[in-house]
């Protein structure tokens, strides 16, 4: 076996860790079903996720010079199915930590449910896919990993068992199938255009040179972007997002908003890095820029009208996905870097916001009034997260990544996108300030929830503390984040 394909287990560790967790959980659940109410499953899963994240960070540090490769075919092809540079490793670490945060929020609500082992297993499976897709360089592995990152989430949404949740899951499943069809079609066209089953610059360059194959390549990229647009919640593939977010439980939503977005971006970066520096002109920029501009505008405008925090965060996700896509329209190395930095910052801030909402138990913005006094930890963390999302100091890191995201299109001369970004910045500030201003307000009379049952739950507290610490450190020393993404 090893004579055909080389395998380096240490390099694969970020993906293997959740797989190991899945095996452990399934075996444990089979041996002692329902032991301790199944609550042991979540800490075990969290441990393997953190272990995987440590492995990913190690890989990022080691791979500073040279991408870590494994699963390589023997010469002369010398193609490696797994190739993780520092950026991919940083995104993998992000996916694993975001999944751990989602698990923590699931844990908080675990008293209400019986099937925690199943939930944890599904989460770990989806995480495996998300980690693997960041390093996948061949079409097959990329597609399988991407689907592995999606399908378990549909089950997670449905698992809640309520009628709206099932409804949401159905919508998610149907759209995800449609988008998978698009992805497969796009992958097939890519193979047709380039003649190679890998995402490589050389292959794309060959297809770009030939006018006839260029049209096929264009269609392939358009379909792949459309398929990924579903996972990233880009307009017009976003319709499931505002339906599913408020209906699924907060842990699942946090997974969708954090880990899922990170893995979708990682997949997108694999595709765009094959195109960066090879293709240019208004066409490619338009294929990426159209969904980005629509997402920025529609997401922000609709987020302005929401009263439910989950729905607000759903539309905010749509707008932020536009921000992630925005620097990629430059089709340059700087753009890739900016997108990775942006998505990491966004995921951290959004997870902190979800943790704070979960802790406050708020179902409307009005219920978070006075949160800063009632629960300074949740209120303070939420305030910082909102400032980061809006890009206002003291959430400096939000501002830094926004500047990076805009500077790539500026350098490439994609001015229409810059104009859209400016409008989105202004409207975005209104979105998050609208929420921020209610946080320091006085306690409202006659609000039962505000009456002050003491805040509980060390799991969400951990997420809040770690997330806020990450945001604060990145705000003080933004270059740490920028070196991490290459």
């Amino acid at each position, binding site marked *: 076996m090893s004579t055909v394909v080389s395998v380096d287990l240490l390099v694969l560790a970020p993906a293997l860790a959740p797989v190991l967790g899945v095996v452990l959980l399934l075996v444990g659940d089979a041996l002692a079903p329902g032991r301790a109410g199944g609550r042991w499953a979540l800490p075990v899963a969290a441990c393997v996720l953190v272990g995987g994240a440590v492995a990913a960070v190690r890989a990022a540090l080691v791979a500073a010079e040279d991408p870590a490769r494994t699963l390589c075919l023997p010469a002369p092809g010398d193609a490696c199915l797994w190739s993780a540079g520092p950026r991919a490793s940083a995104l993998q670490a992000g996916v694993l930590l975001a999944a751990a945060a989602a698990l923590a929020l699931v844990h908080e609500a675990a008293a209400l449910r019986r099937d925690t082992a199943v939930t944890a297993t599904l989460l770990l499976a989806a995480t495996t896919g998300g980690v693997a897709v960041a390093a996948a360089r061949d079409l097959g592995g990329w597609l399988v990993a991407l689907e592995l990152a999606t399908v378990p989430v549909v089950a997670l949404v449905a698992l809640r068992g309520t009628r709206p949740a099932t*409804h949401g899951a*159905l*919508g998610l499943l*149907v*759209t995800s199938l*449609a*988008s998978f069809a*698009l992805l497969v079609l796009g992958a097939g066209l890519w193979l047709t255009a380039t003649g190679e089953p890998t995402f490589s610059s050389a292959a794309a360059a060959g297809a770009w040179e030939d*006018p006839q194959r*260029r*049209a096929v*390549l*264009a*269609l392939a*990229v*358009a*379909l792949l*972007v*459309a*398929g990924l*647009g*579903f996972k990233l919640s880009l*307009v*017009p*593939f976003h*319709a*499931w997002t*505002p*339906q599913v977010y408020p209906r699924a439980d907060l842990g699942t939503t946090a997974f969708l908003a954090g880990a899922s977005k990170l893995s979708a971006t990682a997949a997108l970066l694999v595709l765009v890095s094959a195109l960066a520096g090879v*293709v240019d*002109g*208004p*066409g*490619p920029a*338009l*294929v990426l820029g*159209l*969904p980005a501009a629509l997402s920025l*505008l*529609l997401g922000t*405008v*609709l987020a*302005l*009208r929401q009263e439910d925090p989950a729905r607000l965060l759903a539309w905010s996700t749509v707008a932020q996905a536009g921000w992630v896509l925005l620097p990629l329209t430059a089709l340059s190395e700087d753009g890739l870097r900016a997108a990775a930095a942006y998505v990491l910052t966004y995921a951290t801030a959004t997870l902190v916001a979800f943790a704070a909402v979960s802790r406050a138990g708020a179902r409307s913005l009005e219920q978070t009034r006075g949160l800063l006094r009632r629960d300074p930890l949740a209120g303070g963390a939420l305030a910082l997260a909102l400032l980061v999302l809006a890009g206002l100091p003291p959430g400096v890191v939000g501002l830094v990544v926004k500047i990076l995201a805009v500077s790539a299109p500026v350098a490439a001369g994609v001015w229409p996108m810059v104009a859209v970004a400016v409008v989105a910045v202004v*409207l975005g500030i*209104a979105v998050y300030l609208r929420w921020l201003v209610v946080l320091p307000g006085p306690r409202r009379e006659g609000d039962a929830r505000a009456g002050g049952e003491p805040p509980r739950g060390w799991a969400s507290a951990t997420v809040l503390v770690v997330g806020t610490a990450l945001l604060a450190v990145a705000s003080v020393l933004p270059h740490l984040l920028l070196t991490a993404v290459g």
Partner: protein
Amino acid sequence: MSPWLLVAVPALASLVGVVVRREDRWAGAVAVLAGGLTLLLAGIAWVLEPGSTAGHVLDLPVGGLDLPLATATDPARLAVATVVALVALAVQAYSTWYLGADDRYGQFAATVSLFTAAMLLVVVSADLVLTLVGWEVMGWCSYLLIGHWSRRPEARRAALKAFLVTRVADIGFVLGVVGFVAGAGTSGLSGVVGAWREPTGCLQEQLAAGAPLPEALGACDAPDGRARTVLLVLLVVGVLGKSAQVPFQDWLPDAMEGPTPASALIHAATMVAAGTVVLAGLHPLLADSPTARWVLGVAVSVSMLLAAVLAFAQSDLKRMLAWSTVSQVGVMLSAVAAAPPADGPDAGLLHLWSHALFKSLLFLALGWAAVAAGGTAAVRMRGSASATPVLRAALLVGFLSLAGVPLVVGGVSKEHVLAAAYDGAVAGDGPGVLVLVALVLTSAATAAYATRGYLLLTAHRRDRPRAGTVTPAAPAVLWALTGASVLGGLVVLTGSFALHQVSLLWLVLTVLVVGVGVALALVGGLDRDPAEVLARRLVPYADRGLGVDGLYRRVVARPVLRLARVVAYVDTEVVDGYVRGTALATRAAGWLGSRLHRGERSSTAVGLVVGGALLLGAVGVLGWS
């Protein structure tokens, strides 16, 4: 010894004073001790360090500019610094009595300390940026001091008026400083003077080297003569504002709403005299620019004569002193304006020195007399000083000095000013003749109103003159200042001021002119108010400062307010209209978006996905090929 010490001690005292302001005794002790220490330091520096030294703390390159933050101490500057410190100490000591019962005495003492620090900074600064800092701090402190009794609407209005009028003039000062610094590339006084001294030097060199005119103009982008004139005039405008010269004169009489010690400080040694110090530093440039000299000369000639006439006709004695300040500052500045380059500005600085002594003496003595009489109106104050020997002596010496009688301090300095103006008139390229004529007329008018003031306060008897109760501080201060006013003229023997010999002719002329003035005042006899005799009709107009306040309102305030209303209208109706429109459009877009997302069916979502993919595919294929 670093001149910074002179600035630091009172500045520190003001900080400490703010901290201990609730405890009157502590605040007073801090203020007086710091004042004494400052005077000691200034005196030591003056006596022990003859010759000029220049120092700078740090070179601060800011962009293309060089900020040396330099200080300079030459004997003239140190003499002025000493007299500033002396007057400040006198004011602080006197205030412990005068404002002893005031509930905001602590703030007052701290402000006076800060004011002193700012003035000393202007005196020792050899850097235009430092000068500007001191200048601005003085403006701010004067606002606080004039408005000290802020519960009275008149005091608030006077403070605001002083602040606004000087601020308007400061526009010129700031522009002038910025222009000079930018042209020279440095803010150091010597650098600025050096760079602007010969504005056409570079051009002439280039032309002499054979370069054609356009190229020479291109090579010499630095200062040129016309720019220098404009900047000097701007600077002069700022100085006229702070020194309350025409057309900015009207804030100073209103500033009498402040406590008398504050008036003594502002009028005698600090704010109004600061312009003289600044222009003296830039005298090499000023002497070379006839236009700026004419602007300054005309303004101060009009000011000193007008103010002397108005002072004579005031029905309020404190306002009489205020107008006399306008007149005397005009005399100081006239020396700077008229003196030819060879003479230098030191005659003006000498008059600053003597004016500081006798004007503080007069103000503090009048303050005491006013407390005894219960008001400052001439009718009320008649004879109020007659019962107290110290007041009689102080007022006698003070008014003699003001009138310019030879041998006392005011007379000595006035002779030097006259001599400088004569030199200027002979040299003939400046406003020398005009200034000389104005000076002679002003001297006569000054003698007349000084005589009037002394007659009213001491000679006219009232029923029961009372001295009032005072602490020992007040008489001590007055005796000290009286002595200084008698002997202060000896400063010319120290050689601190670079002065020319004054011939005996000027002495005779001064005596003659003063005699005319005194005689004029005594036309109605010893027992009648000379203003009633000579200028009964003028009194109501003089009390209102010839209605200049109304002129300010009509010419400046109303047009500015009208313009402000237009701007506000444009802002709220036009600019805000766009902003409101944006908000409206955003809200409408949000409503439309929610309408579109109301149908939450899976088929809609799938339709959107497929439709989006088709659109994107079409765009991709068409755009790429």
